[in-house]
């Protein structure tokens, strides 16, 4: 599902001034043209870099969710072909679309954002530059792939130009760049890099004349490491969110659903272990209450060891019951279904009109039996017996607040989720808790 995304920039004014500077003061020879190849790349990276420093995640998320599609109208010129006159004559038309040419496409299936023909039009002799940016779709957290390996300080176009002439890969402003050894932060350790120490370059702050010392990696590495950690955190939090949702639903059912004790077993407890009689009792109760079955029957087939499966209610239970279920008369394990592929992943098998879905987080009442054994709650539910009601217009939110360095405030980042929903029984007659102990 392609989605367009637009990046805007606040560097247009700078580029306009810079281009005028080039046109008025520089003789654009082929030598300069070669330098502009580098310059073009530099400005491309610089363009991205400006986005990175301004809360990358918030911007990308905002762009994904709210930007309008925008046509890439960047001009593409072959290397060295235009003349100075051409540059002079067309400078206005070249720059007009500048803040609209950062248009790419996010492919949400491959989780890659590609900037094709991303042209930073400085003058007419510049080639187009391609680069890419990857976005993790599942977490809405962006990950920079190939990105700028250095950060430039915009002291002035003239200085940048000089650095290019001398084939300097990055602009160093006196003491603004230092190499120090520092301990990796937690995010970096989690990213699988050197767990103890690494070389960190201190860079001058972006775009400003202030000279701050940063005890972190260069921008690209830093962002990559943090986002790798965030991607992993997002995955884990997603699992946690759904597990929490299940647990709340489980607890709601345990708190309020009426129950039937298994009584036909022989373990001498109350309730007893589960038997076919008990299954028939609860199925009969659901049928008497006009509960719809959830799953259709599975037709019999001419296969050895298989048996047809009735249309069924769900029975949600603990994995501790797996062995006891095997021993119940009439139990059909899911691998004995005529079409095993129709079985659900968590399904264990069926007994009569119940298909058992097991979970390690299944409900259990500690010492709930007469003899003090744990009682396992088997929630037998018909169609639409309970539901999760979303509140306040949303179900769940992934929240990330990045750390802000170089100051005593807001040093701690936070990442997590919150959701506002309540589980509830929609018809109490369609959900019955069949309680059982182990044999």
């Amino acid at each position, binding site marked *: 599902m392609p989605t367009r995304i637009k990046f805007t920039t606040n560097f247009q004014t700078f580029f306009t001034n810079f281009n005028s500077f080039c046109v008025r003061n520089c003789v654009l020879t082929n030598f300069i043209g070669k330098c502009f190849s580098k310059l073009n790349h530099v400005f491309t990276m610089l363009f991205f870099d400006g986005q990175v420093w301004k809360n990358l995640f918030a911007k990308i998320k905002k762009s994904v969710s709210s930007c309008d599609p925008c046509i890439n109208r960047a001009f593409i010129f072959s290397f060295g072909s235009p003349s100075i006159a051409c540059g002079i004559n067309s400078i206005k038309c070249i720059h007009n679309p500048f803040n609209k040419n950062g248009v790419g496409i996010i492919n949400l299936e491959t989780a890659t954002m590609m900037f094709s023909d991303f042209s930073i039009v400085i003058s007419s002799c510049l080639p187009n530059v391609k680069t890419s940016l990857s976005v993790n779709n599942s977490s809405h957290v962006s990950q920079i792939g190939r990105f700028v390996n250095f950060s430039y300080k915009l002291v002035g176009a003239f200085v940048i130009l000089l650095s290019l002439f001398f084939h300097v890969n990055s602009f160093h402003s006196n003491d603004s760049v230092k190499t120090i050894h520092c301990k990796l932060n937690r995010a970096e350790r989690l990213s699988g890099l050197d767990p103890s120490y690494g070389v960190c370059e201190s860079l001058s702050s972006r775009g400003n004349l202030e000279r701050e010392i940063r005890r972190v990696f260069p921008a690209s590495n830093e962002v990559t490491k943090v986002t790798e950690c965030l991607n992993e955190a997002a995955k884990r939090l997603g699992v946690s969110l759904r597990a929490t949702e299940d647990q*709340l639903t489980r*607890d*709601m059912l*345990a*708190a*309020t*659903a*009426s*129950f*039937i*004790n*298994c*009584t036909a*077993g022989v373990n001498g*407890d*109350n*309730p*007893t272990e589960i038997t076919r009689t008990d299954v028939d009792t609860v199925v009969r109760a659901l049928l008497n209450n006009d509960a719809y079955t959830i799953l259709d029957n599975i037709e019999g087939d001419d296969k050895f060891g298989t048996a047809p499966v009735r249309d069924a209610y769900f029975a949600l239970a603990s994995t501790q019951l797996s062995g006891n279920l095997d021993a119940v008369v009439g139990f059909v394990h899911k691998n004995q279904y005529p079409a095993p592929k129709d079985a659900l992943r968590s399904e264990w098998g069926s007994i009569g009109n119940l298909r058992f879905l097991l979970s390690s987080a299944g409900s259990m009442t*500690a*010492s*709930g*039996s*007469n*003899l*003090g054994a744990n*009682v396992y709650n088997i929630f037998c539910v018909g169609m639409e017996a309970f539901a999760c*009601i979303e509140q306040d217009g949303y179900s769940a939110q992934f929240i990330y607040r990045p750390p802000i360095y170089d100051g005593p405030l807001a040093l701690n980042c936070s990442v997590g989720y919150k959701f506002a929903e*309540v*589980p*509830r*029984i929609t018809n*109490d007659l369609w959900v019955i808790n069949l309680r059982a102990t182990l044999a």
Partner: protein
Amino acid sequence: MAYNTCINQGYFTSDGTDEIIQVRSDVDWVKVVNLTNIAGTTQWAGTEWYWQRGMADGDAVTNYHAAGTQAISTSTCAIGYNGVTYRGVYLMDSSSDPVGAIDATITAVSNAAPPVATLTSTETLQPGDIVRMINITGAQQLGGMDFTIGNGTFTDTTFSLDYMATIIAGTTGSWRRIAFDPLYYPRKRFVSAITAAASAVVTLTVTHGYTIGQKVRFTIPAAYGMVQMDGLQGTITAISTANNTVTVDINSAAFTAFAFPLTAAVPFTHALMTPVGEATEIVAGKVTLDDAVYNTGYIGFKLGTSATAAIALGSAGGSNGDAIKWLAGKSFNV
């Protein structure tokens, strides 16, 4: 202790029972001061308690009057002083495992009204606690059921099953304290009695928390006799907190009498009252639903005390009437 990380503070007047304090976030340390004891000179009276993560649940460093003066000595609740151990600070998470340790010291359950259990010690209990009875010889029908205890009878060695019907006496057995109710309110409850009347009065074994107007449904198995009540839905028209009953708009006058099963009836399904319904009621501008949609979970801590005066004197929860202030917060580990 970094006081600038404080997240909560407050005060209360002790009623002689454990004080549960819910906080917005988990805590790493708790400090408690008993202003009443500080002002007094009662020997062995605790004045200050401090607990932080890493200390045992229920423990705390405590200051106390070592003599009948303002002189202060220091100990911990676990070590104690004057030959007594005391109750300090307990972390609370109502969504965690709610079951306490099993106690197999019950020696008798009487046929009184209500029944009274005799055991070795009720030190870890308080009136109003919920207890799960287990494997009572001669009273197997009580096994696995929860009861509110101690409001009728509560001594060092006995507690009453407050809202239970009369039974044939039992002998030995076990019990476990249930620290937390099920997470969602209102909750299903065991039924111990139903009257045969124009408006049936239903007695529940655990403090019910229901209110007038809520709709409920009854599950009354054959073992209880009043099978006509099974599956019926009614609206609560009156409640009694003293007797832990609800009155419903169901005419049970012609129903078979309700009879709690005998020990020989085991196994059977228990009689239940469950919250149901879609009806809503406007209370103070908000809509309340009849069925269980209210998550009552919380985190916080408990300041323990005891019905035994000597223990309450040095416990963080204090004695009845004590003015107590507390401070709790989060800290960074260093």
